[in-house]
């Protein structure tokens, strides 16, 4: 009987040891690091002070940077939802083999290096002579070239592209769980196509949209490669700032404080929104 009780712990020992040593300890060390002191010449001093945290919370530079990070993440989330939800719905109504082919086309980029995909956007934006501007101007959408490189607009578009598969995937999974007869039932009761989407389909896939949104938001807020390439050295978000503190300025304690704050803020937002979603839908979808 005792052997039975110990079994699950024995089975998970390798994973527990690894995660204890390589996740929990380093994270704890990072939190500790954020309380250390640092000077241009003296380097890192292992003391416990609130200097970095004080700086992060009072300096308007950091406030603005965090605000920018979450603003971009929110816009990316909205953009992926506005484009991804209808696309997932359209995809779901396609017949084979088109359904499978386009699913592969849309989800496939998830597996292509994010550096290569962002490079593509850098080429498309490419200053005022970029293809996107030429296309938009020839269609008459804009009259003069829009700046995309080194701007938030550019970051939002590129990040929305990078993270779009996650949204489509989440909504797709929700659509798969729908009983196709339910749409027929609504039609038989006199609902038109628009009513079916608004009153029947959307409310049912809302949990999927929201969970997709949470994933996209978290990944957008912590994205690094895309903001680094599109934003360059000029436009910083939390992760690129932390990177600079670590590998350029070498002020590790300050970088650690930024990183830990990003982690805490994200956990708070994600946990709170997941709770909200769960509570809202517990009764309906169990």
């Amino acid at each position, binding site marked *: 009987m005792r052997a039975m009780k110990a079994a699950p712990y024995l089975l998970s020992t390798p994973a527990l040891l690894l995660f204890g040593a390589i996740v929990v300890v380093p994270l704890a060390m990072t939190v500790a690091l954020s309380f250390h002191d640092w000077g241009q010449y003296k380097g890192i001093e292992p003391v416990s002070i609130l200097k970095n945290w004080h700086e992060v919370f009072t300096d308007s530079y950091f406030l603005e940077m965090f605000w920018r990070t979450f603003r971009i993440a929110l816009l990316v989330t909205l953009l992926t939802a506005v484009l991804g939800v209808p696309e997932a719905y359209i995809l779901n109504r396609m017949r084979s083999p088109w359904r499978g082919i386009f699913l592969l086309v849309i989800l496939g980029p998830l597996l292509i290096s994010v550096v290569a995909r962002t490079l593509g956007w850098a080429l498309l934006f490419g200053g005022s002579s970029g293809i996107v501007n030429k296309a938009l101007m020839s269609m008459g959408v804009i009259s003069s070239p829009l700046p995309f490189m080194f701007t938030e607009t550019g970051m939002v578009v590129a990040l929305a592209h990078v993270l779009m598969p996650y949204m489509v995937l989440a909504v797709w999974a929700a659509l798969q769980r729908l009983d196709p007869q339910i749409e027929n*039932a609504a039609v*038989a*009761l006199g609902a038109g196509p628009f009513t079916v989407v608004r009153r029947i389909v959307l*409310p049912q896939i809302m949990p999927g949209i929201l969970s997709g949104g949470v994933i996209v938001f978290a990944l957008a807020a912590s994205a690094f490669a895309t903001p680094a390439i599109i934003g360059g050295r000029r436009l910083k978000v939390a992760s690129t700032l932390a990177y600079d503190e670590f590998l350029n300025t070498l002020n590790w304690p300050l970088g650690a404080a930024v990183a830990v704050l990003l982690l805490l803020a994200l956990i708070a937002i994600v946990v709170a929104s997941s709770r909200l979603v769960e509570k809202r839908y517990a009764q309906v979808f169990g």
Partner: protein
Amino acid sequence: MAFLALEGLTRKFGTHLAVDGLSLGVEKGEFVALLGPSGCGKTTTLQMIAGFVEPTSGAIALDGRDLLAVKPAKRGLGIVFQSYALFPHMTVAENVAFGLEMQGVATAERTRRVAETLELVGLGTFAARYPRQMSGGQQQRVALARALVIRPQILLLDEPLSNLDAKLREEMQIELRQIQRSVGTTTILVTHDQGEAMALSDRIAVMNHGKVEQFAPPHEAYERPATPFVASFLGKTNLVGGTTVRPEKISFAASGLAGRVKTRIFQGNHWLYQVDTPSGLVTVIRQNSGETMPGEGETVHLAWGTT
């Protein structure tokens, strides 16, 4: 012309003929079952009436009007789906009210009719529940209420009881029959269960390979099957010496076809026998009247009246 008239209705899927020139007339207030094995075209027929599948050729007329010219959303038919297809994000009352809302029925009137219909199916106290929180039988009633509340010209039932267990199914059959009688809606039931079809309907259309083999009241179809398929599909049959005989019509007698009891199975209200005779295995059903019955290995004589 019948209230609902299907004429030469045909549907091809690729090269497969799902429904093959089917013609059928249903009278107003009648309860008709489309009965047949899976793949016989009964569900496709129902979906063509509902408008979810377009016929390759043929016509459907309801009350003299061409039904095929009407969009599915405007046909005003009540449908109970096999999976019930309840809206999971709406309460029972909201589910039932949906069709009325689509028709633009005023709120007060809507509330009254929803309550009335829920009362009819015995769910008066469940209005605020979500479908998830209800049993299969209750969900079934909600689906029925949702279809009936719009006062449809025709009620279509697509294997409505197949997801319920045997005991509940029997109860629901009785209830369904009573409800249909009291509201008087013309009803078409699609089922593969011959017992269900016979219990519920005024007339049964036995279908096979996309065609109707017989369209008759249950008793008539059972007693005088038009084809061997109808005979075998509506209950057990024996083929003895070129004639078909229902097992319950055969009795043990002093003389007649001699045979040896191969197996004997007790089924509560009756006994099921398989008797080895010179003209093959014969199935015999005898009521359990409390008498002693022949056991396995005994020699018996079988007799039946000729009809």
